[in-house]
């Protein structure tokens, strides 16, 4: 039977490393995704995730279950990302994925029926979203990340960020509005570029 996070936390804080193993394997992917999308670089995300789990282990005895374990872990990760950005004195990066070789791309198809053109378009959109997100103010970006990619409720986000629920909604709305304008502009630019390329080749 699968044990709950709370049960695993209780065992891990009593020194059972196998329980901590299970917590790590359960939460490593979402925590990595949060760190990667916040920092934009794989090596940084890797370091932050390892540090987040070490901090969590060190703080297990102090964790009394006031919040969900996942919320607590997200909060540790976000704090570490914030410190990381402050220390490096830089805004989040957008890492350009390597290789646009169609052979490489073919492995990334979400469905066998997805054409290479669709795949390239999806990749371009992915980069455009990453770029637009990196340019958002930190509060808006964090609210969107937690809502869109981790499915937290407004209340959970408000508790995690220590702000009123209405502030969370405002940040989400403003963030999505800015993203919308930027993505529409980018798509218009891409369309005019394609048109120009087509006209020059014909």
């Amino acid at each position: 039977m699968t044990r709950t996070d709370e049960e695993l936390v209780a065992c891990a804080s009593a020194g059972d490393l196998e329980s901590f193993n299970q917590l790590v394997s359960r939460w490593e992917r979402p925590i990595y995704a949060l760190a990667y999308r916040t920092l934009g670089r794989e090596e940084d995300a890797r370091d932050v995730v390892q540090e987040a789990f070490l901090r969590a282990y060190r703080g297990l005895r102090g964790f009394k279950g006031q919040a969900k374990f996942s919320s607590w872990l997200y909060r540790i990760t976000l704090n570490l990302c914030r410190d990381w950005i402050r220390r490096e004195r830089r805004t989040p990066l957008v890492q350009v994925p390597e290789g646009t070789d169609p052979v490489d791309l073919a492995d990334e198809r979400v469905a066998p029926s997805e054409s290479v053109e669709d795949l390239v378009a999806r990749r371009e959109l992915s980069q455009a979203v990453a770029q637009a997100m990196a340019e958002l103010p930190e509060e808006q970006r964090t609210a969107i990340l937690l809502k869109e990619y981790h499915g937290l409720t407004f209340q959970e986000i408000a508790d995690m960020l220590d702000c009123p629920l209405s502030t969370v909604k405002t940040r989400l709305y403003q963030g999505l509005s800015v993203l919308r304008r930027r993505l529409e502009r980018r798509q218009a630019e891409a369309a005019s570029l394609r048109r120009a390329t087509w006209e020059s080749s014909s």
Partner: protein
Amino acid sequence: MMPAMCDERERLIGYVYDECEPPERRAIESHLDECADCRAEIGALRRVRQDLLAWDVPAHEPVWRPFAPAPIVPWYRQVPAWAMAAAAGVMFLIGAAGGVVTHAMLPQERAVVATAPASTPTLVPIGVTPTQLSEAEQRMVQMMRAELNKRDVPRTTSNAQLMPASIGATLTQDQFNNLLRASEQRQWEMVAGVSNEYMKQINSLRREMSGIKEAVALAQQGGGR
């Protein structure tokens, strides 16, 4: 009276994420029936959400290595330290009791083998009490421990250097302890860095304030003349 929805578009967010109370939902739906602008806004927000799904996280190796299974240790290694100490104490007492019995039974002259020299030199220097010496020793131990901790994990040590590199590898207790120590040290360094920043800001504000005070004093002196 409810304010116009068009002026409070943040309210649409609850509707877009399907996270609003039924009365609020009904109010928004009835507004959307009449307002084309807000319908367009909802559509645009949903399209952005759809676009956001395209942002993938690249495939990556696991960043954490699982702990090595607990080593199989002989039964005597599993006995707690206090029990071992108690057993050693009992053995010592038995030995001492045997010695006493032997001493009582053997002739007197054979028992006297050697005696301590009459003038055993004292280890405590003149003017220093044993309590002071013990305190000094404790301080020295603390200093050494702090120094050792610093040396143990150099500032530049990152988790990547301490975590086993190969994917199939496991994390031993020693490696994990090193990771924990490095993590603790980094946290202290971070706290020290932040405190330093704050102190710098406070000092800079203090200098500014004293400059302002001097300027005000000079101005007052000038005005007085």
